[in-house]
Structure formats: structure tokens, C-alpha cells
């Protein structure tokens, strides 16, 4: 199924919370969904007979613009061999997204990475702690405004 068809199907099921479809881009077509609707939409995408998105290929955190963070979901259906990209944005002041780790278990570590490096908080995640950086690290280094610390545990960090 093409992204446009999937989009129309979602539009019919969810009356609100789904932005416009962006096509003719150098990347896969995508659309934005509301952060609080992500979990419900993902459940639908997985369970609907004609969609069957049984695989979360990738979940990425992005420092989207001056005021917002984004989370990008790359979905794939092994059963029906089609794919979908959805995005959601949250304000940097309160970056909370409902987790999808109860929809696809693979999301658990992806969400921990997005939390670790970008600082997105995933509400309902069973074990949201740093996955790559040491536990006592301060800040989220892939934010554009991140400042490299002078010292970490007594070790000089800058060259």
C-alpha cells in the first residue's frame, strides 16, 4: 500500500491529530501526528488487517528547530511489504511523547537512545535511563545548543 492510501485510511479513523501529507521530497513521504496520539495511531497501524506494520525499523530523536524536538518513526510491514514514515514534534520546554515500546518491543532501546542523546522523555517507558553515555553524564549532547563540558570526572574533555 502506498503512503497516500495509508494516510487516507488514517484520516478516516482518526479525525484529528494528523497533519498534512508531505510528498515530492528527496526523502520518503511523511506526515506529522500529535505527540499524544502517537501510541494510538501506532497501535492501529500494527493491528489493522490491511496495514500490519509489524516492524519498527527505526526510531530517531531529532533537534528539529529552535523550539522543538522531533521523533521520527520508520515503519515496515514484512507481511505486506510496505513502509511508512511518521513524525511528531514536541516543545523543548516539555519534551514528552507517549512511548511505543508497548506496541513494538524494539522501541524500548531506541527510545532510550533518543532520551540519552536528544532528551526526549517517553511517557510510560518501562526503563527510561541512559543507554550509551555514562549514567552520571549531564545534558543531552546531540542538542544543537549543547556545550561540551571542560571536565568529566577529572578528565579534560576538549582537545
Amino acid at each position, binding site marked *: 500500500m502506498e503512503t497516500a492510501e495509508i494516510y487516507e485510511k488514517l484520516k478516516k479513523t482518526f479525525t484529528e491529530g494528523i497533519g498534512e501529507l508531505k510528498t515530492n521530497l528527496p526523502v520518503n513521504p511523511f506526515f506529522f501526528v500529535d505527540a499524544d496520539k502517537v501510541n494510538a495511531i501506532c497501535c492501529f497501524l500494527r493491528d489493522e488487517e490491511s496495514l500490519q506494520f509489524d516492524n519498527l525499523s527505526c526510531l530517531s530523536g531529532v533537534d528539529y528547530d529552535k523550539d522543538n524536538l522531533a521523533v521520527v518513526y520508520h515503519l515496515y510491514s514484512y507481511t505486506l511489504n510496505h513502509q511508512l514514515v511518521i513524525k511528531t514534534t514536541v516543545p523543548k520546554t516539555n519534551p514528552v511523547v507517549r512511548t511505543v515500546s508497548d506496541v513494538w518491543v524494539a522501541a524500548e532501546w531506541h527510545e532510550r537512545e533518543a532520551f540519552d542523546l536528544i532528551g526526549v522523555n517517553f511517557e510510560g517507558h518501562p526503563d527510561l535511563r541512559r543507554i550509551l553515555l555514562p549514567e552520571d553524564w549531564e545534558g543531552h549532547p546531540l542538542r544543537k545548543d549543547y556545550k561540551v563540558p571542560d571536565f568529566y570526572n577529572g578528565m*579534560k*574533555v576538549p582537545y
Partner: protein
Amino acid sequence: MGLLNKLDARIEQFESGNIIITSADKLMNWSRLSSMWQVFFGLACCAIEMMAASASHYDLDRFGIIPRPSPRHCDIILISGTVTLKMASRIKRLWDQMPEPKYCLSMGSCANSGGPYWEHGYHVLKGVDRVIPVDVYIPGCPPRPEALIEGLLKLQEKIRNQSLAKITA
């Protein structure tokens, strides 16, 4: 005789050929540099070259260099790759667990000075010499096994010219 050549020109040999005399330092150094056991760990792509050097084609075993699973058995530590800040404290601990006399080889650009992460690597220690003392720096990204072996031979040279009596005094 290979062994006698390796020892020292100053050794004396008796007519019967069964007794040799040399200094304790020379004998100790010769045995130390002929069995440099290394800590069995690798960090990044340099570790692949280190493994290649250990395998049959380059055969580090002919220099008496074998990896040991405990730092308490080891004489040298080969920092083979990128040292992240998270790893740095572990390396320091391994180093502290090694018995004296011990030596450190920094292998490749990352361990030498941060390598390609020198500017934007918020997570990389810019040179392992910021946490432990380094005896030999091996340049390369990653260094070929030949370069690693040259570094090890340089270390052998260093050990050959040391005096344990002076170190421990």
C-alpha cells in the same frame, strides 16, 4: 646461537659451552622483553589489526606476546582504538591492576590524540596519555600489523636498556 646473540656482547662463554655469565639486569631484561604478555582487550578498528597481528600470518607469539584474560598476569597494555570517556575509567582500573613493571602502547590516532574525534567528539578522551602513562605511540588509522610490530620492537628496545635494579631502588 640465537639466544646468545640476543643477550649481550659482554657475555662470557666457557670452553665446555654449558656455562654463560652475564649481568642480572641483562638476563632479566632479556626474559622480560621475550615474554611481554598483553591485556586481552580491544577497543575499536585498531583491535582488528591487533587481532590480525596476533593471528598466524604475523604471529605475535614468536615475540612471546600472548593475550592474557587477567590484567594481573600482564606486562603490557595495548590501547587499540578510541578511548571514550566511559571507557577511560575502566582502562585506568585495568592499568592499576597490572603488576609492575608494566608498559603501555597507544595504538592509532584515536588513542594517541583523539584522532578524527579531536574536535567534535564530546565523548572521546583526546589521548589515552591523559589517564595513564604511555611508553610507545604507534601512528596510523589504523596502523598495519607491521607498524604495531615495529612499536612492540621499540618497546623491546626500551626494556633491553632498562635496569630493574635502578627502577625498583
